[in-house]
């Protein structure tokens, strides 16, 4: 094995996996090219927009700025986690009910970030929401609906509806 290629082992959405990757690949390239997962997608490629959001050991990161080699030994969670045959969670349901997207390109990132926010702050103020999501961009500009969706998701979670 050359020094510019390595084998990484990690947990992907709860499953133990391994992959051979060039050391200069980022996490988006890893997920798309080795696992056929396209929920995290590269848009700005600069850490600004959040379309490439994934969780590494429970922390949100920009997949576009995170080297694939560094998820070795880590737990990686993407928007696809638990998607097969499960019901939507409170955040996803709230985004639908509030109409918080048009094209949906940015939605995986917003959903993952909103889950993180509500884990940290179950009852966020509008200011909390705007600060926390300032690193997520929506080119369809569904921002008012997104903020409403986050509030709705918080309500649903507190009422015990959905995960």
């Amino acid at each position, binding site marked *: 094995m050359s*020094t510019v290629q390595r084998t990484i082992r990690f947990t992907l959405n709860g499953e133990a996996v391994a992959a051979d990757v060039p*050391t*200069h690949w980022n996490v988006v390239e890893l997920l798309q090219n080795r696992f056929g997962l396209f929920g995290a997608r590269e848009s700005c490629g600069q850490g600004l927009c959040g379309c490439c959001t994934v969780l590494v050991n429970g922390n949100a990161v920009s997949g576009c*700025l995170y080297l694939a080699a*560094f998820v070795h030994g880590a737990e990686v969670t993407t928007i696809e986690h638990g998607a097969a045959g499960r019901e939507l969670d409170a955040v996803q349901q709230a985004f639908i009910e509030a109409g918080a997207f048009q094209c949906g390109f940015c939605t995986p990132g917003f959903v993952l970030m909103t889950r993180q926010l509500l884990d940290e702050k179950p009852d966020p103020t509008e200011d909390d929401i705007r600060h926390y999501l*300032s*690193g997520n961009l929506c080119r369809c500009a569904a921002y008012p609906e997104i903020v409403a969706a986050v509030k709705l998701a918080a309500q649903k979670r507190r009422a015990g509806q959905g995960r």
Partner: protein
Amino acid sequence: MTPFELLEPRTLREAAALLASGDATVRPFAGGTAVMLMMKMGVLRPTRLVSLRAVEKQYSGIGAGADGALRIGAMATLSALERSPVIRNEAPVIARTLRTLSNVRVRNVATVGGHLAHADPHMDLPPVLIALGASVTTVDAAGGRTIPLEKLYSGYLETSLGRGELIAEVSVPRQAPRRAAYLKCTTRSADDWPALGVAVVLDTLRETEGAAVREARIVISAATDTPTRLAKAEAVLRGARVDDAVLQRAGDAAASEASVIGDAHGSAAYKRELLRVYLARAVRAALAGEG
């Protein structure tokens, strides 16, 4: 991005040794948020990256010594800093600054050492930490040294760190009883790179003693090549009771002494005007304890 070799030494000293050749295509890599951007833009094509992620855990610590001075490991993430109760208690201006520094995902990954070493004058923590009187401790083949943060920056994206010299730790004198504020002016969106940053740390007499300013440290960023202390503006505040006339004189002093340069965020003339306004606002915010 082009292929490179990725090394993950287990100690900071080993990492420093791997960088000692001074080969510019061999680079330290901490959180990598800045390095990744430079590689993506093609301005950096490393042959080798020396990751600091696997070095001793002590370099990720955040704590306060008996004197209240804060010790922050170079590998501590900006999120860890933001959430640290020690930081909130001993230097609340740092926690407040972090709230609008980049975004959650970058803060989860970026490190204090990488943040300070990057030397982009638009960055937020350097002016704040210089105003508080911080210094960095380094590690290299010869051992290491302590550098006042004020002396770390030598130019745009340039530091006075030697070949194979790495930041190991940052030491920050506690804020209290001083009052501090950092204000930045962004001209496009709220989380854009600033056109100007102003950090102010004031040591004031108590209300009963006349509330005059005993000592002032003022540092600006984004409008100058490196974070810059404004000695003349500081002198205006020293010994004064703050009122509109004093703030006007301090603003005039600041605008005339700083080597302001224009960029995409504003012309030099505009930034000089911003400086007058934001210096006054920052002093007032510090006195009100709301910066």
